[in-house]
């Protein structure tokens, strides 16, 4: 993994250089002429890698190395070696596992996946030659493509102009994707730096004419990479030109892009000025809790149960809020929808409704207007309940899709494309992922097993039910905790299906851990340091299990992975209703704390999540296969590249 970080470090200063050089284009052309042969020779030094790859097939997992190859102009030997070792890069998981996924549409994913890495690989090289003319740009592009293991070495040795024609036939289809993905990147960039790049945007728009809508292109690109190559030089030229124009103006914002990729610092509620600002904007009027827990000043601590009637009263006044979003918000608030997947799906479906009913206001841009609309809806949802990480990822996906809608699409086409994108996200990333997880996890359940689970994770429930359908004989221990007692719901469903269960509370975990053979847990999110962010108590269960040497299997869909890191459960968390602690449901005899809720000396802390250190987790079962927690950052990297192109 070390060598992975290297290329970035090498590329970065170049990007910065580009930003400087674009302003003084004519002077820099000579230096670029010099750099071009270097990159060509660098890619010429790379053939060992492309021969190492088992085939030139784009489905091969070896498609990941390219980023390394492109930076090989500095360390050619080292990178070639790195490329060789990374033939067993963790993304091979994704490939092999994706393949046995039943849904036909996802077999395309390896292709998409590799394209994700393509974008990364070709972009830096292209942008390292910014001010250059169209032709030499194209040469640089075509010479960078062979390095990715698709075409022959001989191409590289040819003069640039020739190379363009020679490799054109073979590379064309790939380049098409390349340029498209590049273009996608640019439209995103364009939004931000629209004034300075007006001309290039036009060029991009012109190229869009010949493009297929993104929804269909993904399926098209999957298997027919090698087959379909009716090369029309003119279109190819056009596309290369686009890509050149694209990279030209890419130089400026690309660094900003990367900065933006890093997760935003979250709202800190102890920052008073910002809280006041946020309150002014808020739709939901919340009263702050009187008795706040000092340690959690940075998290929102509101009186619970006060917002709902107020919001309901406002139902007909909330003009800008779409009713579907409004409904989902209320459901979050009242707790009718809980659980990462359910909340995420509900939100996405609400967005689908929003898109269906959307019409672009006059004199406004669909992309931008809809993005701002979605943003306002999201902030409403946050007011109802803080977003889960999975929802954050889904929102990022939706916004990405909106931002990358080709301008040329008509409104109805764009809406249809977005709706199908969201539908596909729900089907692939959530429902499909769960099916894959079930398929993997069931292989770990043997006859006579005693399985422990905590709370009510949907993935685990599916696993248990599926294993039961397969006539495996096992027993389930359902561990529950106050105040939500979600385990009872799971228990009810499992018993109805005829699975033998034992029910207990989390305090008794050491008592029952003796008989447990495996622990299955769910997660709200897996962070890139391997920390599992999940329902509070998961850490306790995992800790006791590892103390008793019981393997802990964590089931989590990959769309819930996040590149953030977290060490404890304090810095970022969600606080539930404190009154839920003082009142014990169904136990009138427990009334010690009645009448003390407003005592200044007494606080109630109802944490919703906790962070489980990765050393308690034996294995993470995800839709990319079964991986150790240390592989999470890899999946996050690879997944998010794919994410841009889904």
């Amino acid at each position: 993994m070390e060598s992975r970080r290297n290329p970035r470090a090498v590329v970065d200063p170049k990007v910065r250089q580009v930003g400087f050089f674009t302003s003084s284009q004519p002077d820099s052309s000579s230096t670029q002429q010099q750099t071009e042969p270097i990159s060509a020779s660098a890619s010429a030094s790379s053939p060992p890698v492309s021969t190492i790859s088992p085939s030139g097939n784009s489905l091969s997992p070896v498609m990941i190395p390219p980023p390394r190859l492109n930076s090989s102009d500095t360390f050619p030997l080292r990178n070639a070696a790195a490329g060789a070792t990374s033939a067993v890069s963790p993304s091979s998981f994704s490939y092999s596992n994706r393949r046995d996924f039943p849904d036909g549409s996802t077999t395309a994913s390896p292709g998409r996946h590799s394209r994700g890495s393509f974008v990364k690989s070709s972009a830096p090289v292209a942008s390292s030659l910014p001010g250059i003319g169209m032709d030499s740009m194209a040469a640089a592009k075509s010479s960078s493509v062979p390095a990715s293991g698709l075409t022959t070495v001989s191409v590289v040795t040819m003069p640039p102009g020739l190379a363009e024609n020679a490799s054109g036939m073979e590379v064309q289809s790939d380049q098409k994707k390349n340029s498209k993905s590049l273009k996608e990147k640019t439209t995103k960039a364009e939004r931000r730096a629209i004034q300075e790049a007006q001309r290039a945007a036009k060029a991009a728009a012109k190229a869009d004419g010949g493009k297929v809508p993104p929804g269909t292109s993904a399926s098209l690109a999957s298997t027919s990479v090698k087959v379909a190559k009716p090369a029309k030089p003119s279109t190819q030229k056009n596309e290369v030109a686009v890509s050149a124009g694209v990279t030209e103006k890419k130089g400026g914002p690309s660094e900003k892009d990367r900065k933006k990729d890093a997760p935003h610092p979250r709202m800190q509620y102890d920052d008073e000025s910002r809280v006041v600002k946020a309150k002014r904007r808020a739709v939901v009027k919340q009263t702050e809790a009187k008795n706040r827990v000092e340690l959690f000043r940075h998290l929102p601590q509101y009186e619970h149960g006060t917002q709902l009637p107020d919001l309901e009263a406002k139902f007909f006044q909330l003009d800008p809020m779409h009713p579907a979003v409004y409904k989902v918000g209320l459901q979050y608030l009242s707790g009718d929808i809980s659980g990462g997947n359910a909340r995420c799906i509900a939100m996405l479906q609400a967005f689908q409704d929003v898109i269906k009913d959307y019409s672009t206001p006059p004199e406004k841009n669909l992309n931008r207007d809809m993005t701002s609309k979605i943003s306002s809806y999201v902030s409403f949802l946050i007011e109802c309940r803080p977003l889960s990480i999975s929802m954050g990822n889904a929102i990022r996906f939706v916004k990405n899709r909106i931002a990358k809608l080709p301008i040329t699409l008509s409104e109805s086409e764009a809406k249809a494309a977005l709706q199908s994108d969201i539908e596909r996200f729900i089907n692939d990333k959530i429902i499909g992922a769960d099916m894959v997880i079930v398929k993997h996890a069931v292989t770990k359940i043997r006859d006579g097993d005693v399985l422990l689970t905590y709370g009510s994770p949907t993935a685990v429930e599916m696993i248990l039910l599926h294993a039961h359908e397969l006539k495996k004989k096992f027993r389930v221990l359902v561990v529950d905790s106050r105040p939500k007692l979600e385990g009872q719901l799971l228990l009810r469903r499992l018993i109805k299906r005829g699975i033998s269960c034992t029910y207990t509370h989390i305090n008794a975990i050491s008592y029952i851990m003796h008989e447990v053979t495996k622990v299955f847990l769910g997660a709200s999110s897996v962070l890139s340091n391997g920390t599992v962010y999940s329902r509070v108590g998961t850490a306790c269960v995992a800790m006791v299990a590892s103390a008793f040497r019981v393997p802990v299997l964590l089931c989590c869909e990959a769309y819930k992975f996040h590149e953030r890191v977290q060490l404890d459960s304090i810095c970022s968390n969600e606080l539930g209703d404190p009154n839920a602690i003082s009142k014990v449901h169904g136990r009138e005899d427990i009334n010690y704390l009645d009448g003390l809720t407003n005592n200044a000396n007494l606080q109630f802390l109802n944490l919703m999540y906790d962070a489980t250190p990765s050393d308690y987790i034996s294995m993470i079962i995800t839709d990319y296969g079964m991986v150790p927690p240390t592989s999470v950052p890899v999946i996050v990297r690879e997944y998010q590249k794919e994410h841009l192109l889904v």
Partner: protein
Amino acid sequence: MPDVQSMVAEFVNKLRKRKIEGSQATAKCTVELLRSVISHQRVPHANQAAALIDAVKAVGQQLVAANPVELAVGNVVRRVLHIIREEDLSLTTAAMAGLDLLDASDDDDIDNCKGIGYPAMSAAVVAAAARSTLRPPSLQTLLEGTPESATVPYTSSSGADSESKTADKSSLTRKLKHDVIEGVNQLIQEISGCHEQIAEQAIEHIHQNEVILTLGSSRTVLEFLCAAKEKKRSFRVFVAEGAPRYQGHLLAKELVARGLQTTVITDSAVFAMISRVNMVIIGAHAVMANGGVIGPVGVNMAALAAKKHAVPFVVLAGSHKLCPLYPHNPEVLLNELRSPSELLDFGEFSDCLDFGAGSGSLQVVNPTFDYVPPNLVSLFITDTGGHNPSYMYRLIADYYSADDLVM
């Protein structure tokens, strides 16, 4: 006698029905019962100590059988037996010292010696004297078999003079019983005063701005924290609520009433919060001879979390909680399962359960106690001071005699 019998029966009943909660209350009741048993026990002329021991043992066995999990009962019975043995031993030494005198002078002198020389001596002093001076002979008696053998020479030697002998005997009997009861009274005092003894040490262990986590409801912990509060230390306490009995709520209420900054957290948040906690303080249900602790359910989880974050895990235990037994599989064997109704309401799941069709079954587990192995405990604070877990066996050896370990 019948009244003692009925008292024992009543107490056994209470124990069996778990009417008495808390090891301190149980211990106190047990001692008081044993005191009345001893005082009502008619002592024969020969082997008075043996008679007392037998009587106490008989009652003790009933009590222990009534609630084998309440280790404090067994501890207290053993303590009382130990007191009887020590008193007997000290009397024997006194008698043996007197025997030397007897060889030299009259019987009157013995009476004087016994009546004047030792009357004000408290049982503790006698016991201490016996411990210091009589260790070798007690070991010898151990080796020779029965401790009564020591008394045999005395009775036989003084068997010559009948007149003075009976008077002497009766005074001696009364003496033993009196001393034993005095010792038992001291034990009662010790048990009821252990909170203060432990609380006195609080100031040495709690510093300013400390964050303390506790779980369960223990009077010892309450007094400990309040003692520190009274000494003007300001600190905050996290209390795990301790489902399904919610003893934490009780403790929180008391703490708030005494003006401590208290935060109630759910049990599941123990791991999340432990990284911000400076010290975990719990009250034990019993301390085993290996230094393991039996505490309220959920305590093992807290101990593991504390270990993970290198947070000191401090156990407060009065001396009546020190159990001379070594645990085997204590999570199961020294545990007690409470009613499932604390977790699930009766009949709540009756609609899903269908026993006829061979469908899934439902068990509900609701244990009361939790065992913490000694390697997770940082410190024991007892009424005699702070001790390491590895030292507990030695501390315990001071309180019990080896003969009573198996009752």
